[in-house]
């Protein structure tokens, strides 16, 4: 697979994630979208790491995956908090405060 196709795939993943972030209403789906965006970045790192040689790109990807998982753990905890209150976890439920 060429570098360009990897980068295109990553850009597409990032855009799909961005679209999901803006369009989906279910918190878990939004979390998935954010995860997609982070993984697009990881893909770019690994692709460039392969292209340039050395372990740097992969090292970053491993760290980034671990940190994103920690982030999603907190996100799921927040979704559960909302679910316990409302029995549902759509983002509209969290809109009491005015903009």
């Amino acid at each position, binding site marked *: 697979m060429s570098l360009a196709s990897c980068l295109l795939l990553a850009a597409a993943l990032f855009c799909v994630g961005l679209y999901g972030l803006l369009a989906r209403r279910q918190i878990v789906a939004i979390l998935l979208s954010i995860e997609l965006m982070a993984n697009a970045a990881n893909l770019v790192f690994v692709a460039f790491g392969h292209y340039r040689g050395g372990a740097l790109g992969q090292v970053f990807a*491993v760290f980034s995956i671990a940190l994103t998982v920690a982030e999603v753990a907190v996100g799921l905890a927040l979704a559960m908090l909302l679910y316990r209150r409302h029995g549902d976890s759509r983002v509209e439920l969290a809109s009491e405060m005015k903009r």
Partner: protein
Amino acid sequence: MQSPWLSVLSFLVVSTLVGLGMIGAGRVLRVRARHDSPLKVRPYECGEEPTGPAWMQFHPRYYLVALVFVLFDVEAVFLLPWGVVQRELGPAGVGAALVFVAVLMLGWLYAVRKEALKWQ
């Protein structure tokens, strides 16, 4: 006689024998059900009875245990590259990995103490 292919051949023979043996043992030992038995249309011929649809909601407890599992699971990823180059790193590398695992253990201790892993 010590051809490298001998071990491959013996492996093939043994694995075929084991496979055939298991099928044969099944034929001899199985409990036969009649053709019109309701057992024939069950998803699983033996084991748990499935209850309710698969698209059910899971108890929130699963999430807590799953979260803790995934966190430690991912932290373990860092030990793999360490293991690969562990010889080159020498004692300092072992020390660093021990500190890393010790900190993780503290986290595990915390989770246990907070009863995050207890199923009520």
